[in-house]
């Protein structure tokens, strides 16, 4: 489907002029809302924009308030994630989302190894083996790695463990987690982030290990390499923050139960 201007129907125009002076937050029945002057922000499908977390609302408001003369939608990752959670344009339910996420395990970046060049194979072993070991301990599963072009052979029990672990997150947090997985091309690195075992910078570095290896050998091209690096960091940081802020209430409840 084609929208006005020839773009995809669900994608907004890349930029438009800033049309509001003040950005503020208010609390409505469904959660926190964003006000642009006196207008309430809506999603691309014209639903009222409401988010369950105040901190998330503040961060979204900051995205809108940071825009200067033109609104650069492609930089507003948190807003985009909220719109996706509210509109669910791909119409996937929780089970489908989780299945899609766990499917990444079969060709997880950190499990998919080269045999040559030897230096890269060594780098992969040194950088990726520890993360796999962490995930195997943390989730009590077997994962391993493989140089086969078909990817590693992940036991069904391992997949089941991750399926039921992801099911413990609410739909909003899951959208964030799934987004991070598709960006990093790795379920394991994403779990490392969600469990706060590694930082966003580290996760992105590990995801881009081969690129970094080539960059060290051949040099970096700013308008391509750095551009991609910054964009990936921004998206992964947004997805991670989104997932954490949306699962915050469950963390609070958990703490109360522990006390």
């Amino acid at each position, binding site marked *: 489907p084609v929208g006005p201007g020839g773009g995809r129907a669900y994608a907004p125009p890349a930029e438009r002029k*800033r049309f509001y*002076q003040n950005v*503020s*937050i208010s609390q409505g029945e469904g959660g926190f809302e964003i006000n642009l002057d006196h207008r309430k922000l809506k999603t691309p499908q014209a639903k009222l924009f409401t988010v369950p977390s*105040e*901190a998330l609302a*503040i*961060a979204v*408001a*900051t995205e809108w*308030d*940071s*825009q*200067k003369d033109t609104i*650069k939608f492609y*930089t507003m*990752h*948190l807003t985009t994630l909220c719109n996706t959670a509210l509109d669910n344009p791909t119409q996937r339910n929780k089970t489908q989302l989780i299945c899609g996420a766990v499917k990444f395990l079969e060709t997880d970046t950190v499990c998919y190894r080269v045999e040559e060049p030897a230096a890269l194979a060594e780098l992969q072993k040194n950088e990726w083996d520890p993360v796999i070991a962490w995930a195997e301990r943390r989730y009590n599963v077997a994962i391993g790695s493989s140089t086969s072009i078909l990817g590693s052979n992940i036991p069904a029990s391992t997949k089941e463990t991750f399926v039921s672990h992801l099911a413990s997150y609410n739909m909003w947090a899951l959208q964030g987690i799934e987004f991070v997985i598709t960006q990093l091309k790795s379920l394991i690195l994403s779990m490392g982030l969600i469990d*706060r*075992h*590694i*930082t*966003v*910078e*580290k996760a992105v570095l590990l995801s881009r290990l081969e690129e970094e290896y080539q960059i060290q050998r051949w040099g970096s091209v*700013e*308008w391509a390499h*750095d*551009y991609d690096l*910054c*964009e990936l*960091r*921004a998206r992964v*940081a*947004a997805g*991670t*923050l989104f997932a*954490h*802020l949306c699962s915050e209430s469950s*963390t609070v409840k958990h*703490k109360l139960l522990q006390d």
Partner: protein
Amino acid sequence: MAALGSPLRTLRGLLRELRHAGGRAGRPYRDTPAYRHIVAAFRAHRVTSKKLCRAQQELHFQAATYLCLLRSVREHTALHQEYHGKGERSPEEVAGLVGFRLPQQPGEKG
């Protein structure tokens, strides 16, 4: 656990990013909900006791993640502006690149 460095450094970095991100000139960045929320959160978790350790680590990780987001968006936008933001060259500019000038078409004069 993630190597996060010093919380103070993260906080300073965050406040610096918020200052850069302030879209409207003349509006003090200290007046924004984001600034107030972050400062309040860091103050609330300043007490160091074993009981709060996990909450502190969670907050610091969130702050570091948000800092990464703000910083990366700013850097990406700057790179975009520099390398991809200028649009296409006009036909005259393209001709000029190889030392040509476009011919004057007969109906265009006057």
